């Protein structure tokens, strides 16, 4: 396996864009990425698209060549990856695998989702299809309700408090307010976060990520060729994808995600680093409880301490281990299929020292955790300076 590097990154702003369709968002991110990586479309040997539910949200299927051809990329394998909210993380994992194996020298990955053209109840229904439709979803579970049940059990087992959940929302909104590309650039107080409209007890609106439109793109190549394209290549030091049951009722313990633990264990081993070495990260805060559990599953804090550590500022922008300096899914936004690649773009921005007001002091080694569904898919990526 040969080392792989990211040479180009590009994103759209995230938000609700009634005048933009799925393809125009993907093309904007893709063109920015090609430009950023100094790559021409004819140099792209494979095109991987991460997208969760384009056919349901927009009616368009066969999305990968639909987008690659619009970018001027022709006669290459153009394939869509679907792994719920980890769709583009999975596309990125497979792109890295393709280059690492020597099958390709240069692969482009785009993640995109266009969600806001549907009313919220329909969006809720489409998102729920990432759960087990025969059991938990038929009983009336929504995605917020699955994570609400996870939160209830975490509170029961570890004493996690409502205020701990709210602290994650407050922190991520504070970061997102500094991010010009974020969907909801709004600072919120702890009191506001606690008083949101109920969604699924104990979660309220401020515990939930946003329904967004957006796209993100990256290009990977062999590390030894990276400087032919970019002055600031970023190394893919470790990466792994892992899987688990879809249904919560099939998991032995819902207060931990075994796919996150498995993927991170492999990614740490590949990179030759420990959780303590990671300086900052982007975590999959689809719901506030998910960031708290991610801190524990990734080994950043002891089991059950994710809540108190979040409330104590451990993960704040100027804390010991800044997490979601982009604002996370909570404030940056969560166009589902774009999220995994957007996290990679956010790490690249920090490692290159281009994060502006959000730049962290130590930025040579970052981790992204991209979770699919209620934990049935996970991709963990460790990027670093090379």
């Amino acid at each position, binding site marked *: 396996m040969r080392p792989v590097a990211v040479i180009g990154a590009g994103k759209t702003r995230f938000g609700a864009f009634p005048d933009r369709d799925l393809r125009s968002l993907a093309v904007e991110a893709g063109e920015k990425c090609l430009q950023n990586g100094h790559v021409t479309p004819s140099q792209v040997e494979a095109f991987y698209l991460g997208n969760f539910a384009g056919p349901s949200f927009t009616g368009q299927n066969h999305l990968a060549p639909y987008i690659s051809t619009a970018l001027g990329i022709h006669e290459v394998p153009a394939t869509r990856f679907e792994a719920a909210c980890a769709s583009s993380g999975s596309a990125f994992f497979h792109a890295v695998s393709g280059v690492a194996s020597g099958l390709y020298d240069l692969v482009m990955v785009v993640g995109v989702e266009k969600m806001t053209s549907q009313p919220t109840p329909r969006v809720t229904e489409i998102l729920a299809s990432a759960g087990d439709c025969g059991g938990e979803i038929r*009983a*009336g579970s929504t995605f917020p309700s699955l994570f*609400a049940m996870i939160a209830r059990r975490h509170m029961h087992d570890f004493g996690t408090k409502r205020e701990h959940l709210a602290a994650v929302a407050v922190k991520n909104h504070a970061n997102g307010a500094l991010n010009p590309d974020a969907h909801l650039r709004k600072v919120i107080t702890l009191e506001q976060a606690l008083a949101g409209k*109920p969604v*699924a007890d104990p979660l309220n609106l401020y515990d939930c990520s946003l329904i967004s439109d957006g796209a993100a793109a990256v290009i990977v190549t062999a590390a030894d060729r990276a400087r032919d394209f970019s002055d600031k290549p970023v190394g893919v030091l470790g990466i792994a994808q892992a899987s688990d049951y879809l249904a919560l009722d099939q998991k032995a313990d*819902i207060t931990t995600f075994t796919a996150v633990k498995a993927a991170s264990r492999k990614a740490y081993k590949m990179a030759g680093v420990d959780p303590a070495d990671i300086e900052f990260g982007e975590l999959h805060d689809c719901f506030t409880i998910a960031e708290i559990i991610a801190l524990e599953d990734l080994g950043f804090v002891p089991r059950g301490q994710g809540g108190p550590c979040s409330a104590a500022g451990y993960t704040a922008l100027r804390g010991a281990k800044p997490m979601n300096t982009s604002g996370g899914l909570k404030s940056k936004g969560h166009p589902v299929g774009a999220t995994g690649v957007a996290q990679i773009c956010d790490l690249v921005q920090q490692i290159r020292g281009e994060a502006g007001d959000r730049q962290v002091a130590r930025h040579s080694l970052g981790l992204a955790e991209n979770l699919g569904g209620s934990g049935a898919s996970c991709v963990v990526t460790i990027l670093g300076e090379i």
Partner: protein
Amino acid sequence: MGVVYTETVVHMAPPAFEKDVPYQVAIVSLESGERVTGRIEGARVSIDDRVAMIDTRDGVPFFRKSE
């Protein structure tokens, strides 16, 4: 009979369930050791409460708190 493993009250639902809002969903540990996701009828339940299955509708188990 079973014991509530976890639960939530849903306030925002997809179109098929909007008429039921707010409703309680729970994962129940059955005596067989198996867990199932079902709906709670009647009084609200909390983790560790004992419940009895009262009905199955369209494949969904419905439970009620047992004293």
